[in-house]
């Protein structure tokens, strides 16, 4: 140790040594690391979808519809662009906050509050999916289909339904996942080993789904 501290590059060396050290590269539970690796892999899926979207949008032969017109909603006689999506985004980001609270109470082993905040998160998620269903219904009633689009390039419909659908699937799975974990928390299943890592692992997944939404929001609604 003393040799290393004398060596100017000692610090870097120690970091490398720690990482390559025996047993564990990261001081985290197995499940948490696995979720991280899965999320990196899932990032590649969404990246491929988004890169595919950019490519399709650039090579489409017909004009791409204007987001502010397609995604506008008439409320109380006013045509407000992007209002629905603003609410949806707000709800999803709020749900990340309630998820963070659930993780915080997991540190205190406060079963009721963990479950409460997880259920709130799931409810936010479910309302997000509900609003997405509303948005889809509106677009479909206006004639947008995966293979056709009255506002311009048919690829708009294809890629929009596919990517938001894939993300909506992630949110739906997250809602189910949250509900299962929350009810197990309430029953005290995790008290047996006093191990509440699962709350944080679920949280990782949920925050990831939110983060992906930010990108989808930017690419589909603001571009």
């Amino acid at each position, binding site marked *: 140790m003393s040799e290393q501290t004398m060596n100017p590059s000692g610090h870097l060396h120690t970091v490398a040594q720690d990482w390559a050290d025996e047993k564990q590269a990261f001081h985290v539970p*197995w499940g948490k690391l696995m979720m991280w690796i899965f999320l990196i*892999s899932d990032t590649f899926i969404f990246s491929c979808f988004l890169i*595919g979207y950019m490519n*399709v949008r650039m090579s489409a032969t017909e004009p791409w519809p204007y987001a502010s017109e397609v995604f506008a909603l008439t409320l109380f006689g006013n045509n407000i662009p992007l209002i629905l999506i603003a609410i949806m985004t707000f709800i999803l980001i709020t749900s990340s906050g309630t998820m963070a609270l659930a993780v915080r109470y997991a540190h205190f082993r406060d079963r009721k509050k963990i479950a409460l905040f997880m259920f709130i998160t799931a409810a936010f998620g479910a309302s997000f999916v509900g609003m997405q269903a509303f948005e889809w219904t509106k677009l479909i009633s206006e004639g947008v289909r995966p293979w056709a689009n009255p506002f311009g390039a048919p690829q708009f419909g294809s890629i929009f339904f596919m990517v938001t659908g894939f993300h909506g699937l992630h949110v739906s799975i997250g809602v189910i996942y949250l509900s299962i974990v929350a009810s197990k928390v309430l029953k005290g299943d995790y008290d047996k080993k006093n191990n509440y890592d699962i709350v944080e692992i679920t949280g990782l997944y949920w925050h990831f789904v939110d983060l992906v939404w930010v990108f989808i929001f930017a690419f589909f609604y603001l571009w």
Partner: protein
Amino acid sequence: MAYIPIADQPSELHDPHSFITKYVWSQDHKVIAIQYACTAIFVGLIALVLSGMMRLQLGYPDTFSFIDPSNYYQFVTMHGMIMVIYLLTALFLGGFGNYLIPLQIGARDMVFPYLNMLSYWFYLLSVLILLASFFVVGGPTGAGWTLYPPQAILRGTPGADMGIVLMLVSLAVFIVAFTMGGLNYVTTVLQARTHGMTLMRMPLSVWGIFVATILGLFAFPALFVSAVMMAFDKLIGTSFFMPAIQSLGQDLGYAGGSPILFQHLFWFFGHPEVYIVALPAFGLVSDVLSTHARKNIFGYRMMVWAIVIIGALSFIVWAHHMYVSGMNPYFGFFFAFTTLIIAVPTAIKVYNWVLTLWQGNIRLTVPMLFAMGFIFTFIHGGLTGIFLGNVTVDLPLSDTYFVVAHFHMVMGVSPIMVLFAAIYHWFPKISGKMFNVTLGKIHFWATFLGTYAIYLPMHYLGFLGVPRRYYALGNTDFIPDSAMALNANITQAAIFVGIMQLVFIINIIWSLKSGPKAESNPWDATSLEWQTPDTPPVHGNWGPKLPVVYRWAYEYAVPGVKDDFVPQSVPPEEVEMEEGAGKYVDRSEEHH
């Protein structure tokens, strides 16, 4: 830090209680590995038969009435896809990854045994879906293993109805299966190593499998996305990959899609896939060579870094598969440059293998023969890769038999040589029985020489300009009669090599039934899997206490030591020395 690593915490081991939980719904990594391996070898044999049918048609056109052009393309497609994904990927990662990772790093099992079990059953499901396509209307897809649109989903391509859909679904299921297994492999290597097993003491097998799994987790998403998009194009009429197309005077309703997008997505998966297969092979062969040459692997650190660097580079070379698809010339320059850079770490590995053999006390066992055969075939396939990596050389050679010869040498024959080396090498540990050496040697020479008889002439055919993927060449002026004679010879060699694989199957079955009992460590190897208390290892692998690791896995022919090797798990003070040799000095730290 008062942090107890999870591997040391007491936890239940899911001990199997009945026949079903022990052999069918098993969560033991060794049983799952064997399930993976048997399934993979089974589909591999189907793909081998398909290649034999292709060769019959090519060698003797107009002879076999049961092979029509549609069948031929279906055979080509299924042969390629099965070999690359359902055999090689599954056998290296699902088979050897599952078997060797926990045993070589000193763990009791994978970190998530249940997920690991699901991984196998999803893999089996994907295989069944794939095989089901042989029995649907129109048969399996004949789009070529690259499944390029628009032809892959257009009428006129065999299997354009159900075949292509089943293929895409099967790939998606395979990717789910791979992800479940892959998360396990990576997490296990990172988090569940036994005491003393630092990353830089891991056998190269684990390094190769580990990095290949990471590549898979990052590359398969691109295939998943392209499979989903193509399925939508086929099933609900989107136009992701489909430009406007008229077929028989009819507008097909597609417009504005980009076939090149598919090629980019496919090869962003497809090139790392080459290394998903090659890196485990590099790792396994390093261990086999070092053990049977009784010498430490030359340049261990460099070997590890070469694996990591090759893995990283493999993500930025994909468009070298698309030189003739049409690209900005600067892209061609970039991708040719990155492609040729890969030759540097790869050459380092080859030099190090040869230098490992240099002055070694080589034991010409069956696994060693296959491992040395690999060095030949790999150098061979690697050199032709340099031809094809250059844009200007690639253009005339593209879509000729030169390409077929190249990739079969480098990612067909070479990984298969390693697979045989690895199967023969670890068979005594896996089964507790010894295989028949004579049959093994017959198998080696037939396979090694036979593959050369198949693929060497193909390079020449490629230079003549004989195009690949053609059902029949017909009377073409630039193809001389000698080329047709050569084609017949290649077919004879291919049938011979195919039949000689029966020797391997017979050897395995015979040895399992009545082979002599194998010792615990028949090759005098150092790595942990050879030091298990039971052979074959039982559930939990290590008995009551996990092994402790004191050094790297390559302590062979140590001066002064009584045996010519020191296992990883023997404490320095217990190493038996020759008289007057003094105290044992651990060499491994010098190499670090």
